[in-house]
């Protein structure tokens, strides 16, 4: 396998989390961290590395097969790197948006959002079931147009590394030009919020321009305190429940639902129900008088 930036970034991750812990203590922000929550987040991060390593050969083989079928070759010229990173970030935007709008993908992504805290350890709260959810399909078009699979995976890794530092309350707002182009702590706090106004907004990985372009951007407001987590918050710190609870919920719904509604519980948005007994993000937003721009 090609260049994987993640192992090089891990020591920096550890140092920055330790620094943020000390900052939170020093500034009296004792709600910034919770020990068991941190343990679950870091445990999920460690598990995701194992799950990713197990799935990597299969993902790479599928990508290599697609690459062998296309006559297009972009190669490894220097300009292929920024071009691939940009294209990968666009693919990530749609993967991430699907991860919030399609329950099948949400089941894999929800654990990243299930902490009621927002700190650098939350960034490492990554999925164990990405391969099961086949989220890598969003990257296949990049290979089909001629980017080498190893290059695509390296760019995906760099994108993930970029997203680490934006999971913090320690950084307020950055210069306007930076906030206009890049995903920032401010933009991503909105993404992790359960406030109705903020639900399903700011799906960007590195470049916030995709949200501005596709109508999903919402700026952070000074007059509204952000509440983090998911609509139905987890009731404990069981790491297995954090990793698999939405898959189990899908299973229960599939068993109970009438036949014609079963596909909806897989492919409709989270919160959808055939009898209207639950609420989707759009329904919550409407209940609070917020128009859905999508």
């Amino acid at each position, binding site marked *: 396998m090609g260049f*994987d930036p*993640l*192992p090089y970034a*891990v020591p920096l991750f*550890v140092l920055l*989390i*330790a620094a943020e*812990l*000390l900052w*939170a*203590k020093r500034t009296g922000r*004792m*709600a*910034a*961290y*919770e*020990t*068991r*929550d*941190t*343990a679950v987040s*870091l*445990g999920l*991060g*460690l598990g995701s*590395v*194992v799950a990713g*390593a197990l799935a990597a050969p299969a993902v790479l083989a599928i990508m290599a097969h697609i690459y062998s079928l296309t006559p297009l070759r972009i190669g490894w010229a220097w300009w292929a790197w920024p071009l691939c990173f940009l294209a990968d970030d666009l693919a990530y935007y749609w993967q991430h948006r699907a991860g919030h709008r399609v329950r099948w993908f949400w089941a894999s992504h929800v654990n990243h959002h299930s902490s*009621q*805290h927002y700190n650098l*350890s939350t960034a490492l709260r990554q999925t164990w079931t990405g391969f099961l959810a086949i989220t890598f399909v969003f990257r296949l078009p990049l290979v089909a147009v001629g980017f080498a699979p190893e290059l695509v995976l390296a760019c995906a890794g760099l994108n993930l590394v970029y997203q680490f530092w934006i999971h913090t309350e320690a950084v307020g707002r950055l210069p306007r030009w930076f906030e206009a182009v890049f995903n920032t702590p401010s933009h991503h706090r909105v993404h992790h919020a*359960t406030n109705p106004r903020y639900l399903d907004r700011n799906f960007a990985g590195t470049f916030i321009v995709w949200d501005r372009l596709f109508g999903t951007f919402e700026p952070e407001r000074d007059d509204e305190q952000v*509440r983090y*987590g998911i*609509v*139905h*918050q*987890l*009731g*404990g*710190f069981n790491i297995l*429940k954090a990793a698999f609870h939405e898959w189990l919920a899908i299973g229960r719904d599939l068993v109970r639902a009438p036949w014609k509604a079963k596909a909806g519980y897989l492919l409709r948005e989270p*919160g959808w129900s055939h009898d209207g007994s*639950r*609420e989707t993000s759009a329904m*919550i937003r409407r*209940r609070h008088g917020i128009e859905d721009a999508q």
Partner: protein
Amino acid sequence: MSGPLPLALALLAVLALVALAHWLGFSRAAKLSGPDHATALAQSLPGGFSPVDLAISRDGGGALLRDASGQVAIIAPVGAHFVVRLPANRFYARPAGKGLIEVRGEDFAALLDLGEEGARWLAILSGASPAGQ
């Protein structure tokens, strides 16, 4: 991160960070600031929730709320935060000492110190819980 040694190092780093968080005091219990806090939490329930009656545990560690239709919501602590649950999420409630009510559900638990209000709320909960008291 390939190979057992880097993974073992990452595990050590995780344990060190968790120990640091604990040592710095990030293991505190959740505490409701008052009725407004409890009401705001309950309003996050699907469909909303407008309480007409509520009781907050004397230590701020949870609350019980009832709306005009008689539906009861439970606010239970999870670390430094709370979860809100309705009886549809099966639970049971039982007395746990003078004024104390223990409420347990599929994924939450709360020990509420309601003082003189305890008996009244226990009766309300007995009627609200599908799992029985």
